[in-house]
């Protein structure tokens, strides 16, 4: 499978070409280069997937782990070295398909969305860079290669969020995204250092006796790595960068901040899953608790936001929480006995990537049409944008967990795994699933039904998006309709053995009922022109509403810590100390030298009388001393 190297090389070449020569190209040419390259990459990824899965299982009933490439990139010591290579196993192949599909759709979509934008070529160059880094991340053969590409996706994300670099909010958002994730990556790095030292390798398959002798260090390393994953995947309390990241162009939000980069943390946990299960099950359960809390927190914030991209951002955070919970509730590697969550989490990652990209791209069409992110500028858009409307509805139904759309199947597996872990977890996640259905339909009605901003729409009639934008929507909608029927367990399961998905009818019926009720409530509250119930609720629970709208003030706490504590109480005093104490001490030494020479200077006056006086005085003193002794 030597051709897999193309999957990484081609986007990198396209980045170099567009980055170096892009300024000289027309927009159309630059976009075409980027898109065609991505098309080839997508075809190569599909072929890889076909090739890999068609080759069949090995003697032990699992798909083999292949490494078509692996070479030492940077030697660290005799036993440790950082390798660069390509690793193919079920989850990495699945991720290749997800990333290249969504990325290709975004490339096509951006033709229409970014048309006429300044920096079009730069945009495509960064998209290529991001795609290369993300693909490199998933095929990493060792944890350090993963970290390396992890940093690269962080930078691509920084560059793309700050794409509109003349906008203040975009600059602040890009900075925030980078620094918050960097802070989390510190945990990741230290985790890797611990892992490298105690496991004696950076690969994912360390020697068992090393692990056994490492004791508590492996759980510590895995926990620290999870901090890095939590930062990228926007887990509470490191989620604050993701809503702000919506300042970037909307297709970027679809690609990076919904479908691919933000699930890197989930992928990391899945990658380390055998170690988590074997050596640190408690840490794994903590992943579940963090995921569950984040899912709840984000869902509650999503219920009151008015900016449609923010709602989607919080919804993303919440859904990633679901994936983390799926992985975290595993108690063994056997999918029939407590290991179902692994498959469920990966399945949800797959389906979520498709329908959330669809939602964001749909949101992009809407923003393109009304030139605003605020729901107040929308309402009643179904008449103007039929394609966007239908595809958006499909995605909303999928995320709410209505059969036969893909989200139902994956979410149902997660809930089944949760109920198997503990009933409390099951009911909590079911409740959050209901919240999901509620806020998604609040959003849906707010955009396409509800209170129409007639004044604005009369002035500027919203129009359906061009073909380059609607085709990706239709494609993703079709995937969303069909993806649920993929026998996912045949390909991916916690121990690699084939696992046949069977719906637990009890859980399925419960979750569908809950979703339907939540949708009904949303319909009752938001469908019509006048929304007395919603307004009344907002008035009654004014404090709660305001707190949720301000995301429970988490951002303000961070603002306080960074500006008031780090900058004002650490950096400024240190800088002052440096200039006024350390440096002044050096100046003081210079001054001392100067002052003492000033003092001594009068002794060298050249005045003979003075010399004689001193000489005589000296003689007298000496004589007195001699006499007295």
């Amino acid at each position, binding site marked *: 499978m030597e051709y897999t190297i193309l999957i990484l090389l081609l986007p990198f070449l396209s980045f170099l070409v567009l980055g170096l020569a892009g300024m000289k190209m027309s927009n159309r040419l630059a976009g075409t280069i980027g898109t065609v390259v991505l098309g080839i990459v997508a075809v190569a990824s599909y072929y890889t997937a076909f090739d890999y899965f068609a080759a069949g299982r090995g003697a032990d009933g699992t798909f083999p782990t292949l490494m078509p490439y692996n070479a030492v990139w940077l*030697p660290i010591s005799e036993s440790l070295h950082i390798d660069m290579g390509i690793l193919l196993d079920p989850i990495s192949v699945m991720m290749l398909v997800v990333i290249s599909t969504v990325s290709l759709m975004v490339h096509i979509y951006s033709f229409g969305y970014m048309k006429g934008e300044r920096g079009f070529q730069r945009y495509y160059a960064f998209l290529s860079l991001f795609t290369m880094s993300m693909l490199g991340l998933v095929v990493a053969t060792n944890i350090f290669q993963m970290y390396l590409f992890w940093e*690269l996706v962080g930078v691509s994300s920084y560059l793309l969020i700050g794409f509109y670099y003349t906008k*203040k909010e975009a600059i602040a958002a890009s900075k925030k995204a980078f*620094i918050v994730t960097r802070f989390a990556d510190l945990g990741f790095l230290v985790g890797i250092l611990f892992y490298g030292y105690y496991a004696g390798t950076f690969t994912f398959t360390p020697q068992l006796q090393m692990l056994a002798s490492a004791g508590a260090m492996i759980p510590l390393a895995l926990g620290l790595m999870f901090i890095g994953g939590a930062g990228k995947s926007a887990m509470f309390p490191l989620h604050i960068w993701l809503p702000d990241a919506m300042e970037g162009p909307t297709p970027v939000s679809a690609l990076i901040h919904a479908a691919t980069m933000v699930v890197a943390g989930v992928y990391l946990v899945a990658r380390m899953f055998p170690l988590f299960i074997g050596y640190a099950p408690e840490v794994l359960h903590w992943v579940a608790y963090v995921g569950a809390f984040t899912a709840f927190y984000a869902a509650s914030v999503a219920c009151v936001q008015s900016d449609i991209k923010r709602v989607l951002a919080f919804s993303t955070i919440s859904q990633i929480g679901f994936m983390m919970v799926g992985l975290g509730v595993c108690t063994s590697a056997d999918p029939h006995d407590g290991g179902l969550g692994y498959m469920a989490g990966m399945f949800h990652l797959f389906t979520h990537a498709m329908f959330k990209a669809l939602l964001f791209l749909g949101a992009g069409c809407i923003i393109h049409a009304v030139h605003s992110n605020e729901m107040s500028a929308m309402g009643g858009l179904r008449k103007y944008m039929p394609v966007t409307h239908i595809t958006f509805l499909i995605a909303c139904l999928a995320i709410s967990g209505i059969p036969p759309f893909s989200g139902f199947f994956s979410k149902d597996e997660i809930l089944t795994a949760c109920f198997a872990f503990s009933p409390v977890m099951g009911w909590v996640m079911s409740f959050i699933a209901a919240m999901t259905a509620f806020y998604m339909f609040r959003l849906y009605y707010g955009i396409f039904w509800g209170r129409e901003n007639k004044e604005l729409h009369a002035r500027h009639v919203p129009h359906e998006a061009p073909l380059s934008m609607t085709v990706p929507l239709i494609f993703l909608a079709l995937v969303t309709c069909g993806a649920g029927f993929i026998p996912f367990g045949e390909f991916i399961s916690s121990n690699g053995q084939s696992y046949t998905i069977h719906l637990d009818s009890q859980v399925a019926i419960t979750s569908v009922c809950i979703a339907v009720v939540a949708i009904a409530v949303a319909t009752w509250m938001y469908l019509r022109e006048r929304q007395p119930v919603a307004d009344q609720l907002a008035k009654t629970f004014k404090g709660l509403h305001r707190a949720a709208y301000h995301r429970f003030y988490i951002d303000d706490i961070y603002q306080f810590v960074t500006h008031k504590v780090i900058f004002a109480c650490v950096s400024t005093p240190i800088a002052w100390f440096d200039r006024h104490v350390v440096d002044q001490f050096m100046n003081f030494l210079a001054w001392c030298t100067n002052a003492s020479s000033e003092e001594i200077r009068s002794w060298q006056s050249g005045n003979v009388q003075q010399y004689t006086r001193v000489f005589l005085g000296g003689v007298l003193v000496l004589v007195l001393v001699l006499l007295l002794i």
Partner: protein
Amino acid sequence: MNILSLFVLVPLLMLLGLWLSKSINQIRGVMVAGSTALLGLAVALVFMYLGERASGNTAEMLFMADYVWYAPLNIHYTIGVDGISVAMLLLSAIIVFTGTFASWRLQPLTKEYFLWFCLLSLGVFGFFICIDLFTMFMFYEVALIPMYLLIGVWGSGRKEYSAMKLTLMLMGASALLLAGILGIYFGSGATTMNILEIAALHNIPFEQQCIWFPLTFIGFGVLGALFPFHTWSPDGHASAPTAVSMLHAGVLMKLGGYGCFRVAMYLMPEAAQELSWIFIILTTISVVYGAFSACVQKDLKYINAYSSVSHCGLVLFAILMMNSTASTGAILQMLSHGLMTALFFALIGMIYGRTHTRDIRELNGLMRIMPFLAVGYVIAGLANLGLPGLSGFIAEMTIFNGAFMNDDVFHRTVTIIACTSIVITAVYILRVVGKILYGTCTNEHHLKLTDATWDERLAVIFLVVAVAGLGLAPFWISDMIHESVLPIVSHLALN
């Protein structure tokens, strides 16, 4: 003729050529010819060195030559290189080459400026090829003195104050150093001041080592911006002209790290073991303290100077970890920091040359006005904060991995503290990038400014390629350095 002596001879010839040249074009001709020759020499040396190693030569130093220089005091002109010095020579040649182009349009007194510039590079090259303690020290001084004039005459801002401060502090350090060197020589009972011989004898009494080690380490450490002796660096950098800042941060500060490793640690391993904890604490402070200070600076050069304190602190920190991985990382960090800081200072100089201000409150929206310089600045920034694919990443990762190999609580704690610098670095780099490059330009004088000229582009592109080259393919240079670090580290580990 030994190839190494050419590194001293070429600058000498350049001095002669400059002295004879009459017009600006002749001066430029001499400089370009000379610095290209040096660069070519350095590249050739790398290949010769690798070839020699590949053919199985395992001597500690290659291309050795020895001439008696002053017999009564046993001072020799002994030269020889290992992988570390080869890497440093390559770095110096690159910086001198790009520095020439960065000062292409320098006015006034162009000839005198380049004379001092050449003398400074002579000192630097001489320092890296020498393995005789006293000759090394002499070249060190040769590199130091021109700095005073270069800053004092061609500098900006409070240039006399800064030049004086820099020179006095570094002179003070060299006084300590001289004492240390003499102590080592007499303590070891060697017949020459050859480093290899002293190391092989390995008989400086422990009590004496405990005196000479701190003196030598601090003496070199001042040049490597060791806390609390770093304060010459912000003022010095801020006042120095562009190419001098480049040479200073890019190469001269490396003399410190190199000397600490090759002289202090290598020759006095017992004292290094005994006293390392003090210096580990100081360097850890340097790393974090420099980074925090950089966060609130308002002058572009001050930001970079404090960032250098932080990064050079990491070099000394790694050296003190006393294992081969961390030491390799230290040398890589020297290379990487040299290249990226030179790039940074070059760009700052070019921006300053246009806007006549370095105050980040007065600069904004430069991306639209001078896209080339702005993109270069972003790349330099990303290298500084350790983006994979650029040089900073490999150096830092090697250092952290190496430091982690000491598994006691003290080393672990300081390593984790040092690791936090990667976050703080991101804070100050992105702060500056966001403030000066992004946004819209509000100063109408700046709107009319032009982008880089060809000579500036050449310097910037050359450095960017070097930074990316080191970052993308680190294995060959990392191997070369690692081999040469081993004898020194095994000497340390003997105890």
